[in-house]
């Protein structure tokens, strides 16, 4: 049971990082990024490459995956979205563009895994980092590192958004881009920043993901449902929604599946994503703005003076 709880916490931490990026780009650009999960798998392969080629521990490769992930996020915006936004493409067109970009990334990841296999003379289309993990007093490294990453990200985002001029401009642009522009803010810069951060956080999460589960080039397709569910259940219009949704979906997915597997047999385990899907559908039907869009949440915010 304790292993299930640890797994649930690690998965929740990674979902928070992945959903944060999805929510930020949705708020600033107005488009749900279907390639968000593939960003994470790119991060996994960057960590694998650094491990195989220069022997760098995947945890130590996190700063590199963060920066390269940021560049991937920016490339997505510049190549797949900006030309369409300039031509005033509809939201549906932009969504299809991210879907197409996801397919391109999937193809690149697949081809790259074959190239890496040829270089290292090992099969790199399926890998895990579990044997490389460390333990401190019985607490696995993946739990410590993923929790630290979430804490650092939240602290960094809080300081940025509430204590810096650029951060206030970012919040202003998220709420009302046309008014922000009227204030002299270059809204485009805030969009670029959100895409950089989205890619960076996703790739960073991706470099920890192989400590939790096997990675194959298609892994993105399995986890994308959970990322969207986390953002939508928490609330796509509020950054804190990613935090709330990430933990709700991550813990529910792991624990409910575990309980159902005890009651109905291990065959249930392959249907773990159904739980996320059901929660996402229920949210869309009952309260499309998610938990952070409820009156109760607003009361909590007022009470906390947020």
């Amino acid at each position: 049971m304790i292993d299930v709880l640890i797994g649930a916490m690690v998965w929740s931490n990674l979902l928070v990082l992945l959903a944060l990026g999805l929510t930020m780009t949705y708020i600033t650009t107005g488009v749900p990024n279907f390639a968000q999960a593939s960003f994470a798998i790119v991060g996994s392969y960057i960590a694998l490459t650094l491990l195989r080629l220069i022997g760098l521990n995947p945890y130590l490769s996190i700063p590199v995956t963060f920066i390269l992930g940021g560049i991937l996020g920016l490339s997505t915006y510049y190549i797949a979205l900006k030309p369409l936004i300039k031509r005033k493409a509809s939201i549906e067109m932009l969504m299809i563009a991210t879907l197409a970009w996801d397919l391109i990334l999937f193809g690149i990841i697949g081809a790259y895994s074959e190239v890496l296999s040829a270089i290292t003379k090992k099969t790199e289309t399926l890998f895990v980092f579990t044997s490389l993990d460390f333990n401190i007093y019985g607490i696995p490294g993946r739990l410590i590192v993923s929790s630290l990453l979430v804490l650092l990200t939240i602290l960094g985002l809080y300081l940025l958004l509430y204590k810096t001029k650029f951060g206030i401009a970012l919040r202003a642009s998220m709420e009302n881009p046309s008014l922000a522009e009227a204030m002299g803010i270059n809204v485009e810069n805030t969009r670029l920043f959100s895409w950089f951060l989205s890619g960076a956080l996703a790739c960073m999460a991706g470099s920890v993901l192989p400590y939790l589960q096997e990675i194959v080039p298609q892994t993105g397709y399995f986890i994308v449902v959970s990322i969207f569910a986390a953002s939508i259940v928490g609330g796509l219009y509020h950054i804190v929604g990613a935090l709330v949704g990430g933990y709700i979906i991550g813990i529910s997915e792991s624990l409910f599946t575990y309980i159902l597997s005890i009651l109905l047999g291990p065959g249930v385990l392959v249907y773990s994503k159904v739980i996320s899907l059901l929660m996402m559908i229920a949210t869309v039907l009952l309260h499309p703005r998610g938990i952070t869009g409820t009156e109760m949440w607003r009361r909590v915010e007022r009470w906390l003076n947020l």
Partner: protein
Amino acid sequence: MIKVEKLNSGYGKLQILFDIDLEVPRGEITTIVGPNGSGKSTFLKSLFGLTDIFSGRITYQGKDITYIPPHEKTKMGISYLPQTNNVFTNLTVRENLRIAGYILNGEELEERINFALEVFPELRGILDRKAGSLSGGQRQMLAMATALVRKTKILMLDEPTAQLSPKLAQVIFDKIVELRDNYDITPLLVEQNAKRALEISDVGYMFVSGRVAYGGSAESLLNHEKFQSYFLGVVGIEEC
């Protein structure tokens, strides 16, 4: 200060304004009145660069600004306050004032915020409140204060007294006069509260169906038969 010549504009392929000729003199309050759908708000948006301009010319202090983007116009001292969503509701009053001076450096920004708070002392006690929790009057004052922070020379206000009580509307009108008299700001208003707005104005224009139906001194517009027929109900609209 602002001169508009033969302006044709709208949204996409939909034309709203037709051959607008208009002048906003420096140091005077100019008010545009007209029935709903006459294109008053679209005109302010066109001046600020938020619509599609099909033809015509807009000059500001002699410089052609027809196709200059909004954030550049802000730097030139042109401010536009929409009727709604004119403050950031998720930011505090203090943050709204800070963000209004985004283009200013630290010291200058503090000076401008202090100046705005001198003009609107009502905001001093609520600096840490979120703008979303303010009353309509407080929000309108905050919106005007943000314009002061960013060194506004011409302030375009879209129905600043909409949904305010007559008493609060009077406070806002008094502030507009104060901006003109004491701070060398040129207000350009669009108002449904037409009679009261023209009473404090120097220049008045009346728009009907996207065209200028009348332009002249505010006093002459107040006494013009077209104005009286539309706003004071002396004769029916159809007769006009």
